[in-house]
């Protein structure tokens, strides 16, 4: 499978993050691992780009970030766990629908 990287991912990252958070809350590093395993190693993402995307989603009220409490945190800096909000779930459903439509229309043209 060819690698998908940089500009090809831009614009889809936020939807992919919402999608992997549907499986349950996760901190940044875990979100990346989920993305990598879902992408079967073909996603080549500059890891830092995840955090601006998370902050944008949080600002828009689509995800909610909560610092790990001391008990569950391991040694070192605290991690921030993100989970989908109700608005995030609605937005994910809307983006999925939009994506299916996009693939159906563009796919027909490209595959023709």
């Amino acid at each position, binding site marked *: 499978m060819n690698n998908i990287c940089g500009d090809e991912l831009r614009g889809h990252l936020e939807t992919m993050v919402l999608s992997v958070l549907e499986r349950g809350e996760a901190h*940044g590093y875990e979100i*990346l691992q989920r993305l990598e395993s879902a992408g079967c190693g073909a996603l080549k993402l*500059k*890891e*830092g*780009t995840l955090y601006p995307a998370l902050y944008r989603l949080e600002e828009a009220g689509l995800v909610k970030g909560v610092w790990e409490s001391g008990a569950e945190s391991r040694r070192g800096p*605290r991690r*921030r766990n993100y989970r989908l909000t109700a608005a995030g779930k609605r937005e994910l459903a809307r983006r999925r629908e939009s994506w299916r439509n996009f693939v159906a229309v563009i796919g027909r043209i490209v595959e023709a």
Partner: protein
Amino acid sequence: MDQLRVHVERIVRPIRATAGRKNKMREELLAHLMQKAEALMAKGADEATACAQAIEQLGGPAALRADLQATVPALERLACLPLPASPFLDRYFEKDEGETPLHFALVRTSHMALAIGAILLVAATVRWSGLFPFRQRNANPRAYCLIMMSFSYLSVVVSSFVCYYFADVTGLRRLMSKVAPGPAWVKGGALCLFMTAEIVLMIAPIMLFVWIINPADGGILVDVFSGEFGRRFGIGILLVLLVASVISGLAMKYEHEQWRKWGSLHVDD
């Protein structure tokens, strides 16, 4: 793992955002890099290689910084423009090698004298240009106001000098220094003590002076307190000053914690 911390600071330090937002970015990025490096070490990489790879995979600092900056609301960005005086304020309670307490106190007092002088100038302009919004009962003659203003200024300058001098001699200065080692709560407490002492030393001679030269007039600082404004807000202003000293102490405690964690890192970019 220090290089991870330095890399995070290289990305986040120049971002124009509140300290709270920047600390959130710092903690998250550092947690990410550390987890990544630990994962690479578990696969057999040595620490230096693991850290270098973790940094490389995070992406270039300039691009990431720009992306993070773009997530900060415009108003916050504007409010967090870097102050040219920031490096100076960071080291406000630091002394040069071999500097005497007298020199330290004189230099800091001259800064204070300039700042208070500017404030008094603005206050006098407002007072005598008719912009002062409160009616002054038994408004004092201008000569009396000028004497009061001069004495108040002198009192502020002398009290500042005394406070700075004794702060240095007694070791309070070092306790207040943001960059010197020491527990953060001690630094906050020391600054609170210093500011309270300065406020008391500033106000007490002025009140005494007013009482001596004009016992019938309870005015302080250019008859402001003897008018309607003073009756309404005089005690409130004093309380605000004291509360401000406590808040400054708490802010210093927080600032020192941040300095110890991040500000003391040497970042060359």
